[in-house]
């Protein structure tokens, strides 16, 4: 029996030595970085390549004759023994994962295949074990999984942050609108005296007219009454327009932009500030561009901006002067204030805008005030005359319309405030 085996082995060695292709195959097995082990049907290690020494840290002489299961970590040994047994009765198991143990004690992630070794007649004489150390791959997989988990957590955190940001943006918008309303009521107080004046004047006309008509002798000619009635009618319309203007101005709280007649909005603002201008001896010079298309505006909010700018101009000219209001259509270029190329820039080069410039003939703005002029509560006016909210709120309103306000001193003296508004909704 032993002689037979010996004879067979010798034959095999001789065959190998004789057959150059088998020699090459043996060289490949030896050079392969994977562990290639042949065991008997009982699991004892019979051949052991250099790759196996590399993977398990064991030289061939220390493993030969031992059970291949010794290479497997304790917890996985039972499962491995079952698979090994199945292979020894002819059932291959390819590319499964198991945990091996290196000679130095550390665990090795293994990708393993077990194949029955058969004689040319088909009899299973043992099991071929091919094992690859996939610890690095496993670590990378683990890290990838951790990374994925972190990504999921981060995405959740981002979602939460986005939600918080949206909430705070809504909150900010509400606060802005409240601030706009507060500043508006402040200016309503300022306008009220002027509005009372603007209403009392037509009332005086109505009273004078009705008294004249009441004093006319009965049966006197109707044609004489007609111009008086016309004057009364005009006075009623005038008082009504002033009151309606003030009420509309004071009431709106939400931002509601619709295509609007920009020049009509400027004229309404001038109507409400007429008293301030007349008593301040301010001449108005209007230079309105022709063919102005409807502009998306919240009429009452923009009116608030124009009223603020007119009142500031009046205050800037205590000895009287000229307020020029100029409108212009323009395509923005790189030299314009606060205009950029980035997607996040509120106004971009090449964009079509309309400009509404308010130019006074006052003393202008000192350089140290110029940089603070839009700061909330910044004011150069005497206590009780201004809250310092007018320009801050005006800029907010214009920004809510997607525009901006430019400020500059004019070379010929005085200051110029230019409201920049988009020609169309973005």
């Amino acid at each position, binding site marked *: 029996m032993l002689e037979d085996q010996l004879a067979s082995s010798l034959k095999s060695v001789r065959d190998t030595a004789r057959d150059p292709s088998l020699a090459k195959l043996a060289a490949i097995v030896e050079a392969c970085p994977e562990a290639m082990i042949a065991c008997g049907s009982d699991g004892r290690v019979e051949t052991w390549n250099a790759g196996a020494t590399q993977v398990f840290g064991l030289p061939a002489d220390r493993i030969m004759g031992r059970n291949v299961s010794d290479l497997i970590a304790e917890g996985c040994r039972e499962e491995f023994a079952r698979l090994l047994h199945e292979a020894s009765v002819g059932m291959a198991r390819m590319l499964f994962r198991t945990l091996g143990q290196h000679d130095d004690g550390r665990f090795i992630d293994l990708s393993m295949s077990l194949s029955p070794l058969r004689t040319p007649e088909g009899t299973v004489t043992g099991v071929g074990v091919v094992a690859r150390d996939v610890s690095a791959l496993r670590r990378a997989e683990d890290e990838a999984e951790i990374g994925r988990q972190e990504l999921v957590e981060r995405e959740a955190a981002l979602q939460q942050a986005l939600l918080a940001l949206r909430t705070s943006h809504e909150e900010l918008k509400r606060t802005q609108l409240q601030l706009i309303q507060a500043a508006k009521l402040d200016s309503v107080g300022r306008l009220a005296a002027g509005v009372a004046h603007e209403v009392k004047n037509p*009332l005086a006309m109505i*009273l*004078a007219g009705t*008294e004249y008509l009441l004093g*006319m002798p009965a049966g006197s000619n109707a044609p004489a009454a007609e111009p*008086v009635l016309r004057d009364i009618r005009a006075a009623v319309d005038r008082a009504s327009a002033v009151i309606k203007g003030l009420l509309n101005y004071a009431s709106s709280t939400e931002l509601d932009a619709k295509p609007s007649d920009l020049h009509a909005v400027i004229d309404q603002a001038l109507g409400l500030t007429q008293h301030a201008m007349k008593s301040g001896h301010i001449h108005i010079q209007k230079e309105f561009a022709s063919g102005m298309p409807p502009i998306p505006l919240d009429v009452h909010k923009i009116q608030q901006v124009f009223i603020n700018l007119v009142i500031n101009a009046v205050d800037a000219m205590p000895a009287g002067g000229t307020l020029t209001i100029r409108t212009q259509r323009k395509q923005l270029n790189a030299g314009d204030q606060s205009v950029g190329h980035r997607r996040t820039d509120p106004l971009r080069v090449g964009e079509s805008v309309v400009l509404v410039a308010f130019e006074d003939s006052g003393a202008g703005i000192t350089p140290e005030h110029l940089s603070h002029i839009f700061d909330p509560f910044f004011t150069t006016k005497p206590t009780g005359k201004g809250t310092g909210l007018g320009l801050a709120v005006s800029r907010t309103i214009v920004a809510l319309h997607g525009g901006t306000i430019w400020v500059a001193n004019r070379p010929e003296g005085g200051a110029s405030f230019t409201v920049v508004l988009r020609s169309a909704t973005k």
Partner: protein
Amino acid sequence: MERKKRILLIDDEPAFTRLMKLNLEANGTYDVQVENDGRKALAAVRSWQPDLIFLDVIMPDIDGGQVASEIRADPRLKAIPIVFLTAVVSKNEVVERGDVIGGQVFLAKPVTVADVVQTIEKFAA
């Protein structure tokens, strides 16, 4: 026959001066001129020498205060009584102070013709 009293109405609201002139002339005893511009009004005061001036306070270019100071600065005109007829003061304010605020006579708009006539009779020589 006694000369009609000359009343000059200075106010930048043409409809108001037009209607008040109609009322005062209907009364039959007044000669009324109106001016809607402060500078032209000064010229009218000099050339026409009214017996009483009703003067608006807030007017463009030159306001009622300036018109009054120029009249007072002119020895030939300074005796002409001036009544400020304006919407800048309230009726209560005027009544409480007996028609005089800061040494000036005031009438608050809106004003009845009877008040205007009473004021003329009280102050015009």
